[in-house]
């Protein structure tokens, strides 16, 4: 803040001294001067250090960062070195709810619309709101509830996808059915979805499937036919919590869940450790996940060309098992596949990367690219046209963005 008044002209000095508090107050409340905004320092003040980012088609990096009562959005045209003034999404203060496994989301569509999904505590804990901007963040639509039973049913682990036409898909874990199959144990919810486009202002909620493990984030990606594919930890027979793929078919019906991974993790617990999926332009789904199953323990990679009917085997173990490898992400760009995950040695969290140049057949050595001690969010991979970026948000260093493209 002092920077703003660094070199005042001598004749102005006295006046500035008197006016400074007024000017500061005015600038803070309007947020018109970026250098005065307390939320400007690379996300350092983001609630629980959690932020969301996405690249727009023109290469602009858009960032969402939450504070205790508000959601802000800003952008960077120099890969995160500096950011625009922040724009406020929610006009009315709300109690923003956030945790690492359940982060907010920002997505920019091909036509430049900025979509925002965030959680706030209202009648129910952690219900989600959706808002968008068609004027580069200057104004946002009034946030609307995604769930049509938001006051009576818990929902969380929301995902948002925007297809090539600008149609928005929302997916989430929903407790509205309440009574689940008692044989399966607790923590079992349904997977719901809805869509939003310029013709459809009403978010009609529809069930995709039951049997979803409540507290692991579900992963989603678009297939080459522009339709969503879902990778979710499901609660299968005998309470086994393994992963299945579900996809939207050409007839716009959802496929039955196909168990893609057999780890035999029989547990009635909240792993809080969801999978990730990325689909290349030839339709290969690249999968990463965590398990403590009978078959294997840790985080793993595999791929499938037919949405889970046949999956590469054995899964590739990632990370050092003695360092609690976790929270992996995957990104496929053409023949290139990029992986990231975090490890912890008791003092510091390390971010590891590994890549393949042949669609996941062979892999580079893993490499530690970032480290920090203290609180951090999960690492994420971002696509900027043909380039791959690693994004990591930490309490100590704020937003870190590095180009990990392998040519």
């Amino acid at each position, binding site marked *: 803040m002092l920077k703003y008044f660094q070199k005042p002209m001598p004749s102005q000095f006295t006046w500035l001294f008197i006016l400074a508090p007024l000017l500061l107050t005015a600038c803070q409340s309007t947020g018109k001067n970026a250098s005065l905004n307390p939320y400007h320092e690379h996300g350092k003040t983001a609630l629980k250090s959690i932020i969301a980012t996405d690249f727009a088609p023109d290469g602009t990096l858009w960032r969402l960062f939450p504070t205790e009562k508000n959601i802000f959005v800003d952008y960077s045209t120099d890969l995160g070195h500096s950011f625009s003034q922040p724009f406020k999404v929610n006009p009315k203060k709300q109690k923003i709810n956030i945790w690492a496994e359940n982060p907010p989301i920002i997505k920019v569509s091909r036509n430049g619309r900025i979509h925002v999904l965030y959680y706030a505590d209202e009648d129910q804990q952690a219900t989600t709101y959706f808002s968008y901007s068609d004027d580069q963040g200057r104004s946002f639509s009034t946030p609307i509830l995604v769930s049509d039973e938001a006051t009576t049913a818990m929902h969380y682990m929301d995902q948002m996808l925007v297809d090539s036409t600008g149609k928005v898909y929302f997916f989430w874990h929903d407790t509205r059915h309440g009574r689940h199959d008692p044989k399966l144990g607790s923590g079992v919810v349904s997977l719901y979805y809805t869509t939003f486009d310029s013709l459809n202002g009403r978010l009609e909620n529809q069930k995709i499937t039951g049997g979803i493990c409540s507290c692991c984030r579900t992963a989603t990606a678009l297939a080459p036919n522009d339709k969503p594919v879902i990778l979710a930890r499901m609660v299968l027979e005998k309470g086994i919590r393994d992963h299945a793929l579900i996809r939207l078919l050409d007839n716009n019906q959802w496929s039955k869940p196909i168990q893609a991974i057999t780890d035999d993790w029989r547990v009635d617990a*909240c792993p809080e450790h969801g999978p990730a999926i990325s689909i290349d332009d030839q339709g290969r789904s690249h999968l990463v996940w965590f398990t403590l199953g009978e078959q294997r323990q840790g985080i793993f990679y595999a791929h499938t060309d037919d949405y889970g009917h046949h999956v590469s085997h054995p899964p590739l173990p990632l990370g050092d098992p003695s360092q*609690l490898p976790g929270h992996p992400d995957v990104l496929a760009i053409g023949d290139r596949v990029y992986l990231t995950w975090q490890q*912890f040695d008791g003092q510091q969290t390390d971010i590891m990367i590994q890549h393949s140049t042949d669609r996941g057949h062979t892999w580079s050595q893993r490499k530690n690219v970032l480290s920090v001690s203290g*609180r951090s969010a999960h690492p994420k991979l971002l696509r900027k046209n043909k380039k791959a970026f690693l994004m990591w948000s930490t309490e100590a260093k704020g937003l870190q963005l590095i180009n990990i493209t392998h040519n």
Partner: protein
Amino acid sequence: MTMSRFKVLISALLIFFSVIVTANEANTPKALKFGSYQTIIDQQAGHPLVVVFWSITCASCLKEMATIKEIHQERPNLPIVMISTDDISEAPLVLATLKDNGLSDLDSWVFAESNSQRLRYEIDSKWYGEIPRLYFLDADHNRRGISGKISKADWLELLAG
């Protein structure tokens, strides 16, 4: 006479308020910082105890609470320590959840370090953070860790060593 009555009244009031304060202290979840876990364990040196890690957002944990209540009623002298992995800012909700499940008289703590991963690591370097996570310690404090909700029969077996 009046003076002594006054003194009795004051003493009674003091006792009354100290009971309220003590009761509140016992019920309010305490802040689990680095080192707290070891202190909790050390306070029970020579005695078996059970430490339960749970969260207000974990359905399996909430379901486990019915079993914990039964065990607590049957073995009131067995220390069971409830540690919520939620943020300390959620302490009121943590307390309300324990109350709803009849467990508010148990020793209760909430994670209070921003680096919760390091806090977990200090407790168990092999623990990925899945909950419920239960530790059964015998009188010599040999420890057995179990992830996931378990049955009452499992509890009794683990308590028997």
